[in-house]
């Protein structure tokens, strides 16, 4: 039992006891995330307009620099800062608990922001044109690796604080029984994050020493194994967090409850047990791994993780259907769906992100992760087509949807531009769907990923013929423009709410 006296306020909408120290940290981490989303979004537009061969905007050096920065800012900084905000929300606010050791949480934030700024400065200065993966023997400036390590240590500290918070909240009697399902999903994400960040440290600390010249040689295969122990599981952290947020959005917008909460918890457990092992699919064309290893990891273990996703994919819409039918929308098979709150930004974000994640990202992920099929997809534009559908169409859109509730709740301000917020998920989702499908279509024709130029200009070997890619790359480019517009609307709403939103309540302090 704590002897510390902490300041709380009561949220008039949700009834949550909001710890003010947690509130400040949630707002700070979420705002920082949005800043990196803005940077990454601008870079996304420039990159897409370069890959759109007819436009081909950037010169080669800037293209590779910006791809590195786009990948890092979007896949790591935007998402992890937001996830940390989510962890503090799920670990403190949702449990009506205090945040233990806010000072340590600020220290974690400090490490993360110093690391993120260091990495960005080095990348934009041209000291780390090594792409997001930074594959050895490509060598970046030591400050790049140091920045990543500082960020990872900060994130690790934040994750540990969240887990401690759950235990302390229980011991202080802030909740009884098991934690709510959303918090349980965030715990799953945190457990995966522990493995992920440790694996990242094993990959990046030797890379840092190697860049300083302290270690003369760093085996590329060893780096790749440890990097992908970090790189893909980081996306599984996103997946677990995204699913947790989907449950939250379904409850917030329709009053849905999971059909079988125990089964949903088992599905999260499947992520923890199997999803990291399935990350081996990044190494399917690498030497040194046995066929048995490849098939067991990328088939059977991956299928068990996918089983978890299938459980959630049924449980969430079924929960919505049951809730809608309970309201009287019982006509036919789909009245519950047609009468759903489609103008509610949270529901729109839930439906669109679930659709893109499942139909585009999920199907392509299983197909591309199958050993034999991977041979026709590996290193083509099909791969980014897949992960833009999952990480952007799924995770980012779900995070945006949650923000429309999190921001007013945490800042005590009314959401600015509610009509635009209702439209934003559709605009963003349409853009991402077009972007992903255009990429996949071009990838099927053989267009490689990451490459600045596909015409072979300046090459003695000439260019391979990619049939009909002008159209598919145009679909990709147009999709990117629409998605960036959708992203800009989200940033404008978030910033306007933060700075100009009408105050809803005065913060009432209470001592507990």
């Amino acid at each position, binding site marked *: 039992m704590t002897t510390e006296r902490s300041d709380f306020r009561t949220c008039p909408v949700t009834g949550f006891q909001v710890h003010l120290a947690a509130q400040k940290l949630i707002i700070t981490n979420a705002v920082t995330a949005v800043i990196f989303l803005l940077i990454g979004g601008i870079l996304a537009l420039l990159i897409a307009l370069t890959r759109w061969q007819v436009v081909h905007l950037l010169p080669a050096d800037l293209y590779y620099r910006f791809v590195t920065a786009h990948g890092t800012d979007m896949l790591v900084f935007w998402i992890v800062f937001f996830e940390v905000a989510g962890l503090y929300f799920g670990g403190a606010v949702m449990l009506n608990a205090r945040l233990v050791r806010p000072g340590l949480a600020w220290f974690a934030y400090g490490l993360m922001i110093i690391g993120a700024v260091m990495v960005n400065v080095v990348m934009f200065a041209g000291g780390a044109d090594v792409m997001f993966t930074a594959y050895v023997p490509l060598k970046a400036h030591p400050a790049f690796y140091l920045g990543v390590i500082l960020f990872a240590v900060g994130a690790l500290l934040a994750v540990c604080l969240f887990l401690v918070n759950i235990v302390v909240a229980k011991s202080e009697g802030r909740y009884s029984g098991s934690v709510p399902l959303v918090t349980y999903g965030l715990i799953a994400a945190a457990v995966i994050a522990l493995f992920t960040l440790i694996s990242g440290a094993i990959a990046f600390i030797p890379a840092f020493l190697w860049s300083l010249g302290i270690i003369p040689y760093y085996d590329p295969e060893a780096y790749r194994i440890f990097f992908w122990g970090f790189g893909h599981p980081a996306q599984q952290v996103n997946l677990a967090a995204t699913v947790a947020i989907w449950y939250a959005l379904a409850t917030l917008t329709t009053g849905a409850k999971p059909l079988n909460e125990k089964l949903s918890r088992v599905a999260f457990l499947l992520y923890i047990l199997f999803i990291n092992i399935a990350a081996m699919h990044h190494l399917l064309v690498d030497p040194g791994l046995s066929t048995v290893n490849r098939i067991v990891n990328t088939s059977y273990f991956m299928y068990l993780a996918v089983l978890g996703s299938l459980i959630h*994919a*049924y449980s969430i819409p*079924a929960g919505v259907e049951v809730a809608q039918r309970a309201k009287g929308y019982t006509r036919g098979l789909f009245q519950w769906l047609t009468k759903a709150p489609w103008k509610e930004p949270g529901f729109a974000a839930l439906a669109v992100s679930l659709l893109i994640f499942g*139909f585009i990202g999920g199907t392509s992920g299983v*197909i591309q992760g199958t050993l*034999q*099929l991977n041979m026709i997809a590996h290193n083509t534009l099909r791969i980014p087509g897949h992960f833009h559908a999952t990480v952007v169409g799924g995770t980012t859109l779900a995070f945006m949807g949650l923000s429309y509730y999190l921001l007013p709740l945490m800042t005590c301000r009314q959401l600015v531009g509610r009509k635009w917020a209702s439209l934003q998920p559709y605009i963003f989702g349409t853009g991402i769907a077009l972007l992903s499908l255009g990429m996949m279509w071009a990838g099927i024709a053989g267009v490689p990923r990451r490459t600045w130029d596909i015409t072979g200009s300046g090459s003695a070997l000439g260019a391979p013929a990619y049939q009909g890619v002008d159209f598919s790359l145009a679909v990709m480019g147009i999709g990117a423009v629409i998605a960036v517009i959708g992203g800009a609307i989200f940033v404008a709403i978030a910033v306007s709410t933060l700075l100009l939103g009408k105050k809803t309540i005065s913060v009432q302090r209470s001592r507990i």
Partner: protein
Amino acid sequence: MNNKRSKFHAPGTLVLVFIFLLVFVTLYLANWVLLTQIWSVR
């Protein structure tokens, strides 16, 4: 039993699930066909 049935009554979602499975199976098979066309067995 009846209570349980009404509690878990979600036929629309079941239809959506089967649409998803159909899409997945079609795409999965199409990829295997694509693979056979690239590396044909003679």
